[in-house]
């Protein structure tokens, strides 16, 4: 009896030591991985304030010179504005069309509906991807939309919409039909129902889609790079590519300062939208 208790205790002590060691090792690994991921972010924050930034991480020689030079560049600030314009423009197209399409997809029975959705989803990754850039360029050229925002907005929105419809359809599927039916009984038409019932309930989903779209467009380099010519139309992601010194080297002083500026709006949008709409979901009460 006592012998068995002792064995049990020894085994227990053994496992708890092993358990403890495993946890420490696990924590160490996580710390190292975390540091690796944090390094570029630290660079992003420190380098802009360094008089002589390099690609390695170093304690900066504090200065605001880089920003002063950046503001003298005629295209820098305008490109941020261009990015905002493209981002918000695409976002409006995507949210409006996406909400309408997802609502229809969720409520109307079309044979092969899921197949259509999956197909679109697969194809969409091609539209904004590298593979389709030549045909995309040709289509936009023959439409006479080269070097216009209309062309860029169409291609960007077209690439993002399928994913958005896919996500939003799921959201709308989870809104009980009885909400709409009850509104219909009181005489509400489809758009009224969409406005009063579906959109408010799907609002967290729409907010997510809006932010996600802006972030996608903000970081998109390829589409505006190919479809836009004039430097004064170029968004920030493309402009950054043009920061070279006279000797033909990447101008790290401009790039680092611009990179910090470039990441700010996205963060701000995220916090504003999150505070205003919140990523919550009402869902059904009881069903």
């Amino acid at each position, binding site marked *: 009896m006592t012998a068995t208790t002792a064995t049990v205790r020894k085994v227990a002590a053994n496992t708890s030591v092993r358990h403890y060691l495993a946890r420490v090792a696990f924590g160490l690994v996580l710390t190292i991985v975390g540091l690796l991921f944090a390094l570029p972010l630290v660079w992003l924050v420190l380098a802009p304030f360094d008089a002589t930034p390099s690609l390695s991480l170093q304690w900066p020689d504090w200065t605001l010179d880089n920003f002063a030079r950046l503001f003298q560049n005629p295209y820098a600030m305008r490109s941020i504005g261009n990015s905002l314009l493209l981002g918000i423009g695409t976002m409006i197209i995507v949210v409006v069309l996406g909400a309408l399409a997802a609502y229809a997809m969720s409520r109307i029975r079309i044979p092969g509906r899921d197949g259509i959705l999956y197909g679109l989803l697969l194809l969409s990754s091609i539209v904004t991807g590298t593979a389709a850039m030549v045909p995309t360029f040709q289509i936009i050229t023959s439409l006479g939309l080269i070097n216009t925002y209309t062309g860029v907005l169409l291609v960007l929105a077209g690439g993002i919409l399928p994913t958005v419809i896919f996500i939003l359809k799921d959201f709308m599927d989870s809104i009980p039909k009885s*909400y709409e039916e009850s509104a219909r*009984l009181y005489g509400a038409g489809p758009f009224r129902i969409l406005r*009063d019932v579906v959109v*408010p*309930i799907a609002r967290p989903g729409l907010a997510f889609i809006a932010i996600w779209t802006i972030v996608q467009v903000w970081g998109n380099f390829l589409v505006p790079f190919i479809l836009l010519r004039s430097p004064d139309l170029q968004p920030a992601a493309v402009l950054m590519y043009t920061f070279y010194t006279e000797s033909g080297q990447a101008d790290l002083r401009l790039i680092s300062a611009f990179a910090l500026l470039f990441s700010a709006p996205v963060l701000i949008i995220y916090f504003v939208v999150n505070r205003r709409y919140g990523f919550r979901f009402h869902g059904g*009460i*009881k069903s």
Partner: protein
Amino acid sequence: MAGINATRLVKEYPGGVRGVDEVDVEIIDGEFFALLGPSGCGKTTLLRSIAGLEAISSGQLIIGDRDVTDAEPGARGVAMVFQDYALFPHMDVADNIAYPLRIKRVKRDERRATAERVGDGLSLQGLIERRPGQLSGGQQQRVALARAVATRPDVLLLDEPLSNLDARLRLEARTFLKELQRDLGVTTVFVTHDQAEALALADRIAVMKAGKLQQIGTPREVFQRPNNTFVAGFIGSNPMNLVPATVSAGSIAIGDGVSTALPPGTEDHVREGQAVVWGVRPEYLRWTTTEEPGAIAAEVSVVENLGASVLIAVNVDGHKLQVVVPEDHEPAPGDRGFVVPTGSKTLLFDAESTERIG
């Protein structure tokens, strides 16, 4: 205010399932009408067809004096309370109640006033600013009712409005619903699969099975004179005893040597040797240990306590019958004795058509 008149109403779902099959029903203005039947019999489908949420496949539907067979749901003057209440989670109680008015472009102040007045009428004082998620089930149900009656509809449709409530609350809500309906005098169609609820609330009951109407009548009629064995078995808190039998020499033979008298009024409608089903409710059978005229020998197999009474199952020549016995007189399993039917309360059905005879 309006009555409802359905003629040969059919709702066929894609795939050929007939949710409602050739239903003829006339619901009188101001009536409290129950649709009763087992799960899947088409109660909800019929209700939704009346509301216009399901397109009617064929037949005609008249509400008031208008043919609304093809009318939009919003143009029929009906309001409906859904089984899940369908309260909008993003609106407070007042906005929920006043939502129908918002669609009718009533001004905000007026909407608020109406919401408060109707809310007060349904004991929702102090809850008007809460969200539906912050209400109990019973409160949600009253908000849903308030929203439905806020526009003074001609017809009120209720789909199992009490089934989400717990047993005690359900009894309270039942009384409440009956009072509300009487006060408003609104034609009400009410779906339930609980026969006790239908008997307690309704002016008239329609019993359905597999999309077809089985019987329409007052609670008393469907209870006392069910049209067929299905209605007989469905209505009543203890199902009616239905015993296969044959007509033999002016009485009913239940198996070997056991027989009982023909129910009054059926003598002229049966023929010798006809296969029938003898029906008697457990409440109308009396248990006794002494033989008397009309008594049927039986042996007790199970005893179930119902509180103020006891339900016993007895064996009569291979058939199981249930009998309600007053408390303190209950026998024990294995006891032998007799059951005596109250002759005027027994029924006879044709075995083949299952219809009532006489």
